């Protein structure tokens, strides 16, 4: 079997180099997509027939919410792989992803609040979608705090992984909350089955932003992972040659 590439990838010195090389390949397309998406969302897309120009908050709110969930899935899957196969690099991925996910959960809540005020007349309401997204933010913070509270790295990795895996039940709750409960929050703009509920003029900037945010996470994750790998390998001999 040709699993050698996988073992090679998981070796810290090799990964450190690969991550450094990959970061700009994520970063520059992300930058371009976000710039194009912002222009499309703010200028080219027509105003919404119900929400007027206010609907444009969609272009930063939905990608943030998407990323907050995508990062959590990445983090929990990586933590699970680390737990089952004892791959340290997988735990490093989980640790590196968490702060980024927390920022985007915060951003989803903050931009949602700024959208809710003019449309619903309130900054906040304790409904299922908003509450489950807030729980997502708390899960990230709990994961970060738990890891920080344990000195021994392997124990911190394992404890964090268990928390991350338990918290994954929150992801389908966030996603389906608008269908399962009565809520102020509007339904999905993009549905996987059937046509999206918006015109193409409004849709493409949203897709550009969501794809751009996802690639952006890739770039940030690569850089954070390099830091994480150095910290974990601080006494390894390869660092001497790599950093000098």
């Amino acid at each position, binding site marked *: 079997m040709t699993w050698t590439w996988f073992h090679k990838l998981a070796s810290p010195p090799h990964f450190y180099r690969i991550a450094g090389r990959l970061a700009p390949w994520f970063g520059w397309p992300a930058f371009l997509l976000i710039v194009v998406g912002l222009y499309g969302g*703010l200028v080219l897309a027509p105003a919404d027939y119900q929400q007027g*120009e206010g609907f444009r*908050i969609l272009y930063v709110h939905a990608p943030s919410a998407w990323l907050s969930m995508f990062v959590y899935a990445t983090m929990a899957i990586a933590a699970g792989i680390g737990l089952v196969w004892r791959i340290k690099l997988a735990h490093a991925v989980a640790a590196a992803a968490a702060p980024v996910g927390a920022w985007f959960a915060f951003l989803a809540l903050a931009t949602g609040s700024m959208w809710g005020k003019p449309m619903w007349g309130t900054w906040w309401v304790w409904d299922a979608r908003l509450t489950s997204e807030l729980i997502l933010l708390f899960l990230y913070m709990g994961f970060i705090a738990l890891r920080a509270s344990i000195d021994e790295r392997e124990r911190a990795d394992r404890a964090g992984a268990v928390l991350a895996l338990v918290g994954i039940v929150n992801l389908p709750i966030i996603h389906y909350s608008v269908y399962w409960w009565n809520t102020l929050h509007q339904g999905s703009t993009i549905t996987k089955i059937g046509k999206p509920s918006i015109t193409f003029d409004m849709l493409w900037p949203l897709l550009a932003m969501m794809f751009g945010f996802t690639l952006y996470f890739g770039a940030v994750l690569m850089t954070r992972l390099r830091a994480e790998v150095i910290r974990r390998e601080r006494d390894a001999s390869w660092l001497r040659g790599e950093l000098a």
Partner: protein
Amino acid sequence: MNWSGFLAMGGYAAYVWPSFGLTLIVLIHNVWAARRLHESARNEALRRIDSAGSGS
């Protein structure tokens, strides 16, 4: 394009611009924080290598 009309955002300026502004701040902050983290990890590792090399 009419600039003042664009900036007014149909009366939603007070909500639209802060949400886009905050998003840009978070995007820039995360890149900056990741780079700083890598830089400080690198510097710390280099210090350890130097002190180990000088026979301490």
